[in-house]
């Protein structure tokens, strides 16, 4: 198992579903949702959360600053 893992939280109502984060993710964690937010946009979500390394690439390219990235060392390692 990975010693370091990451996760991404999404400000769903701010997300406009542009998908720039999806292609920026090197480990294919993110996808756009099937459902839509209050503005009618699909939004970014972790489709494959276990693969997240917390590199923050997604958040760096997010034009709407709606992604927050966390990273943690495995407490069991």
């Amino acid at each position, binding site marked *: *198992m990975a010693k370091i*893992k*990451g*996760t991404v*939280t999404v400000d769903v*109502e*701010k997300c*406009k*579903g*542009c*998908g*720039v984060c*999806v*292609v*920026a993710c090197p480990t294919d964690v993110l996808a756009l949702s099937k459902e839509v937010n209050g503005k009618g*946009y699909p939004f970014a979500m972790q489709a494959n959360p*276990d693969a*997240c390394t*917390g*590199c*923050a*690439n*997604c*958040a*760096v*390219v*997010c*034009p*709407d*600053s*709606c*992604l*927050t*990235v*966390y*990273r*943690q060392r*495995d*407490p*069991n390692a």
Partner: protein
Amino acid sequence: MSFQVEITPENKVYGKTPLLTDNVMHYCPGCSHGTIHKLVAEVIEEMGLQDKTIGVSPVGCSVFAYNYIHIDWIQAAHGRACAVATAAKRLTPEKMVFTYQGDGDLSAIGTAESIHACNRGENIVVIYVNNAIYGMTGGQMAPTTLLGMKTATSPAGREAAIHGYPYKIAEIVSMLDGVCYVTRQSVQSPAAARKAKKALRQAFENAMAGKGLSFVEMVSSCNSGWKQSPVDANKWMEENMFPFYKLGDIKVATEPKEA
């Protein structure tokens, strides 16, 4: 054994800077402006310049830039941002003054003001967002529109015989003695955005050190104007814009120009 990353302040590696307001940006999904705004806000925050910075917003899509960063702002008439910034900096030299302008604002209607502020070597930063189109007015041709590119005012594609050629104002201003730093960046990928932020930081440091004018061009996509999806627009930009508007530093003057 698998573990869950805890959502705690200690584990946070990247998030929205507090210098950005909570307003939802009016920009289209995937617009480069949002990313560039964020990088500018991060640089101001990291340099501790919030109380010293005056932003000058243009006319164009980014006219409302003042809604998104917690600093004092002056909204300038179309094309005149560099004249406005000149006075703000001359009268309050301890301030960090930057303009944020699109390609219509800076390289069409505001060519004179921009070039002369560059030539006077005003100690300001000019952030020039070039997406080769007029976004706010609905996708008309810009001076920077590529040959062959279709817009509302070049529906058959830009033809040199009718519309003239796209021009590179970054290269033009790099020839002026008052300009200390000219660079062309983009923000469509994580690596590009990180480089662009470094360039902005360099520019802001130059201005505070009184080295002259720093000019940071951001080659950007306008997916609505280009009638493409955000991801496709970024790809089109890489394939079509970057060969003409080549990324990288154009001028780096290490010492201020002799008086």
